[in-house]
């Protein structure tokens, strides 16, 4: 899978190698590994973008530092599925180059075999997270070109 950064490809393999029940377990682990927000965001939630397509409140921020993408997510503990989606994107894309993230196919959320376990509708939340991450990367890239 040349179109996908290695850590993300690895996650896709992990999910693909187990049955639906264990996929949920993996998703739970990823939800628990999602790092807390650093103070500069925790104290300034207005700097995060809300992903309205998620069934639970999910906020994210994207930074580009030294040509690597840094992702920050905030989602309540009572929403482990949404946190798990964020965890997949964080584990799979954090630290990649902006171009590598932009090159990730938009249908990547459907390659984890989760639609049957969590209902297809919920997958839209992850699709929306990815598209908002990409949009923020494009916006900041344009800003840099202009400046």
């Amino acid at each position, binding site marked *: 899978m040349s179109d996908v950064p290695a850590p993300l490809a690895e996650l896709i393999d992990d999910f693909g190698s187990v049955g639906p029940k264990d996929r*949920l*377990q993996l998703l739970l682990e990823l*939800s628990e590994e999602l790092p807390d927000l650093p103070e500069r965001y925790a104290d300034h939630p207005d700097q995060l973008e809300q992903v309205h*397509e998620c*069934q*639970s409140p999910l906020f994210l921020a994207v930074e580009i530092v030294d040509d690597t993408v840094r992702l920050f997510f905030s989602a309540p*503990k*009572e929403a482990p599925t949404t946190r798990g989606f964020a965890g997949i994107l964080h584990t799979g894309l954090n630290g990649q180059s902006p171009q590598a993230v932009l090159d990730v196919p938009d249908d990547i959320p459907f390659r984890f075999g989760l639609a049957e*376990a969590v209902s297809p509708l919920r997958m839209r939340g992850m699709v929306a997270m990815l598209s908002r991450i990409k949009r923020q990367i494009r916006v900041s890239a344009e800003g840099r070109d202009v400046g």
Partner: protein
Amino acid sequence: MPYPTDPSPELADYAHPERLVTTGWLAEHLASDHPGLVVLESDEDVLLYETGHIPGALKLDWHTDLNDPVTRDFVDGEAFARVMSERGIDRDTTVVIYGDKSNWWAAYALWVMTLFGHPDVRLLDGGRSAWMAEDRPLTREVPSAETAHYPVIERDDAPVRAFKDDVLAHLGGALVDVRSPGEFSGELLHMPDYPQEGSLRGGHIPGARSVPWARAAREDGRFKSRADLEALYQEDQGLAPNEDVIVYCRIGERSSHTWFVLTHLLGFDEVRNYDGSWTEWGNAVRVPVEQGAPSEHGAPSE
């Protein structure tokens, strides 16, 4: 043998107190051997059970366990029997269901069990949040149920489920739309902060009263008192317990909560849940649609 009704005074005023249990009642019964009592957790967030659940509780997923994977319908008798049997439930088992979001999905699961006529199925008043707020124990240990033999029961939809044609025939009768005011008026095609589920038209079924489902719940997720519920549905909205009422929302989940309130807490005789709801009606060709805020019936909604 069904378990006796929870005698707690806070349930006594409801029309059918045997359909609810308090957290205290459940904790007491779980503390010792409890043959014939099975607890199920049914949540909106499908991972919540895995993060910790009431000790001994089994998971029931509204999507994978209760919906047919192909047709937009519920599972058939054989699949339902399998889902129940795997959880150690037979026809005589007392089933207590609880979940997140004020028991919204738990009520949906209970309603589906009603389609199969399961005799004794109850909700835990206040659901998951009430249990947690009282610092009662949670575990990640998934119990192994001894497989039971649930009979294959043919679903009997007619008494509690309405289809689109039933609603068309019912126009002019009592309808309760339990969605948010924005969805009711037609400004929104979906719940605030929820994904759009693909309705082409916004608004409500003509003549429907607007009573958002959450108005039946208290802050802590428990149901409001009977007097408060009577004020809401009977006084404000003018619904009568002997009236044929149809409730609906977007896909029939939120309206299951209201169906439970009207049927089991207020004792209405004939309440049907239209689970096709707005995702069907808002896409159907040439069905009548009304837009705008509620005005004809009672007080405006919050």
